[in-house]
């Protein structure tokens, strides 16, 4: 009996091994390793790592760059997540009714999501070109003076955010299309019989019923925003004057340009902490919101 159990364990091990090896090597071990590194002082090159206790964290929490990037991160999250979700919902509501050409609209609006961020960011940096770029030209056509999009600390973040929103709005639209489609029509009809107009039906029936989707999108998009790198790297590289340097970008710079491994690791831990907190929140809130249908 005991050997049968061992045999089962062995068979299961065979099935899990192909995923387990890379998972341990590049996922679980790095997690433990980054915690370890965050207590060390190291520069990649020197053979010795120096144990410094909580010094990296103390330095980080006293570093004004950290608070600046924290502020940029919060702005980046709010400034990308809210518009992506609102735009996605609005587009889905417009597309929801049967409409000739609906599939064409849907394809066009979803297409930015499929394309490489680096390539489309390069295209946007041409659109943002201050002298002859499309953005300033169009503004000028309606009588607004253009700005030096990516060189002005007041506008650079807006520029990066616009690309981010443009890329993901279609994606959240698709999620809302599915969610709205799944709203039971008898509930809407019942509301209609009770004399609800379109607006009331939307507020009282549709919106609560698609709230799990909204919640899911908020969490996924926030985690995406916390990890945004490609568009920042192409458009601004964290500049000008740190105005687009998010926590992730600060982490990247301190690890791979100034080689302060300890400091970088402590930023990584902060990031991981934030993401895990968000995921747990979504998990528990999700439990509550999903079940009330």
């Amino acid at each position, binding site marked *: 009996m005991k050997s049968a159990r061992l045999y089962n364990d062995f068979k299961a091990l065979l099935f899990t091994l192909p995923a387990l090896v890379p998972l341990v090597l590049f996922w679980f071990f790095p997690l433990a390793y980054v915690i370890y590194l965050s207590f060390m002082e190291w520069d990649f090159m020197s053979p010795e790592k120096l144990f410094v206790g909580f010094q990296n964290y103390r330095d980080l929490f006293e570093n004004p760059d950290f608070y600046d990037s924290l502020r940029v991160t919060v702005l980046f999250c709010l400034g990308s997540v809210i518009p992506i979700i609102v735009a996605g919902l609005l587009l889905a509501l417009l597309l929801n009714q049967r409409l000739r050409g609906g599939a064409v609209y849907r394809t066009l609006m979803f297409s930015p999501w499929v394309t*490489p961020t680096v390539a489309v960011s390069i295209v946007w940096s041409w659109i943002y070109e201050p002298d002859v770029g499309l953005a300033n030209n169009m503004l000028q056509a309606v009588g607004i003076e253009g700005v030096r999009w990516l060189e002005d600390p007041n506008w650079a973040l807006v520029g990066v955010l616009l690309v981010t929103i443009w890329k993901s709005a279609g994606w959240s639209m698709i999620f809302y299309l599915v969610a709205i489609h799944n709203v039971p029509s008898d509930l809407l009809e019942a509301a209609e019989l009770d004399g609800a107009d379109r607006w009331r039906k939307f507020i009282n029936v549709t919106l609560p019923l698609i709230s799990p989707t909204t919640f899911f999108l908020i969490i996924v998009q926030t*985690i995406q925003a916390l990890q945004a790198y*490609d568009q920042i790297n192409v458009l601004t590289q964290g500049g000008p004057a740190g105005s687009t340097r998010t926590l992730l970008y600060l982490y990247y710079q301190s690890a791979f340009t100034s080689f302060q491994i300890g400091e970088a690791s402590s930023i990584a831990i902060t990031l991981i902490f934030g993401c895990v907190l968000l995921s747990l929140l979504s998990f528990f809130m999700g439990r509550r919101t999903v079940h009330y249908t």
Partner: protein
Amino acid sequence: MHLWRNLGTLARHVTLAAAAILMAFPFYWMASSALKTNDEIWQFPPTFWPQTPLWGNFAEAWAEAPFTRYLLNSVFVAGAIVVIQIINSGMMAYALTHMKFRLKGLFTSAILIGYMVPATATYLPSYVILGELHLLNSYGGLILSNGVSVFSIFLVRQAFLQVSHELVEAGKMDGASHFRILWTILIPLTRSSFAVLALITFIEQYNNYFWPMLITKDPNLQLVSAGLRSFFVEGGAYGLKWPLIMAASAMTIAPLIVLFVFTQKTIIRSVNLSAGASKG
């Protein structure tokens, strides 16, 4: 009444068309800028479509940097990762859903925890590990370090959970091995999940930039995004050769647009799946 309805539909069409044009316009602008001369591109006001389209710009951009190499690298690496991820997430998901073994609960929760960790935060330690394994600057490192995805395992697990246990039990009664059950019962029934998985993994890996850029400095090994970015910074000398840069960007984006047009039903179905997966 009829008139109002027609007007409503019209307004809807106008809004949607405006939104769709706005979303697709950067692609049009890229294509038209790619065909202009260096003089025309600096003209004010800009021309909507070049006076004489210079199709030669594409060939010129293609010749200025090893784009063939970059593209082949991306397709090869992304393809290899798709195959590996499909195999290992299928097997892992099978073990988690249809096998009995100790530590199964631990495995499942480890996957869940892995799902919460931002991959980018592990790039620094993974870089050090890859260096220790002497896998920096190699296809091996590129493929192995992307060879597993917690999301894929999660998605396949979700699909396997929907397959009725009776079918699997019947297979076991007939004395079929685990491999046989996986191969002849589960995979055929969840084919569409695998198709979705293959497609989104391919797109993700083709577009991947941050991690591959960190671990491959050798231009011969660069993927297309990193190659394009170095062409933008060096070859294009930051905006002096916009038409060529736009031509290069267009060539990078084109394969994906083509793929998307032919597979959009499947890609859009992925939304249903990941929305389902999110409900745990």
